[in-house]
């Protein structure tokens, strides 16, 4: 599955890019699986995802739990807990 991945705040800074398009293996079923897989994609990813619980996920611009299925997603974003307002 080819999916757009987007990173914000310190997730973006640690990975060193704001977005990329990735071909995701078929056995990656949930957002949590995707975090685990991304953490294996190099030192900068390992650093960004060293504490998966600190990372929030949005699937197609909607907040998602780590357990949420990502099949068919066009855009998946990773970011710290929000701090606006």
């Amino acid at each position, binding site marked *: 599955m080819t999916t757009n991945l*987007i990173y*914000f*705040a*310190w997730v973006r800074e640690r990975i060193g890019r704001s977005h990329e398009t990735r071909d995701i293996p078929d056995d990656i079923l949930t957002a949590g699986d995707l975090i685990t897989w991304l953490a294996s994609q190099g030192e900068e990813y390992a650093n960004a995802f060293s504490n998966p619980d600190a990372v929030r996920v*949005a699937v197609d*611009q*909607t*907040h998602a739990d780590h357990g949420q299925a990502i099949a068919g997603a066009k855009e998946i*974003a990773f*970011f*710290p*807990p*929000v*701090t*606006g*307002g």
Partner: protein
Amino acid sequence: MAVRVQAQDFDIGAEIAALQEGRTDIGAIVTFTGTVRGTTKAGDITSMTLEHYPGMTEAELGRVEAEAHGRWPLQGSTIIHRIGDLAPGENVVLVVTASRHRHAAFESAEFLMDYLKSRAPFWKKETGTDGTGNWVDARESDEDALERWAKP
């Protein structure tokens, strides 16, 4: 109902006037304005940078606003959130609610702020007086603030 994400400042009086224009059925208007404090947990800062998720931000704010209109009899509401670099003292966010009576206006404005703080994809980075950048941590109290709005 209106949601705007913008770099430029807002004019609170003008936003209130826009909600009131041409109508005499409003009795209560509440505004909340969030501003940049010059001293935070991290010490003195020289600026605050607001990053956001274009598209999702507007969608999320629109959802929150629609939820407020479902819960309270509102005659109007406006949410404006600034992005980019802001100096201490500058405005960050504005919420305006208009209703016939004051409790609906107060409660819906608090609701909008509580949800915005925990759901809208904005991130703050402070720059300290020594030039170092520091991403602001989410406050647990902001998540707690949502609990009182949970439906029974």
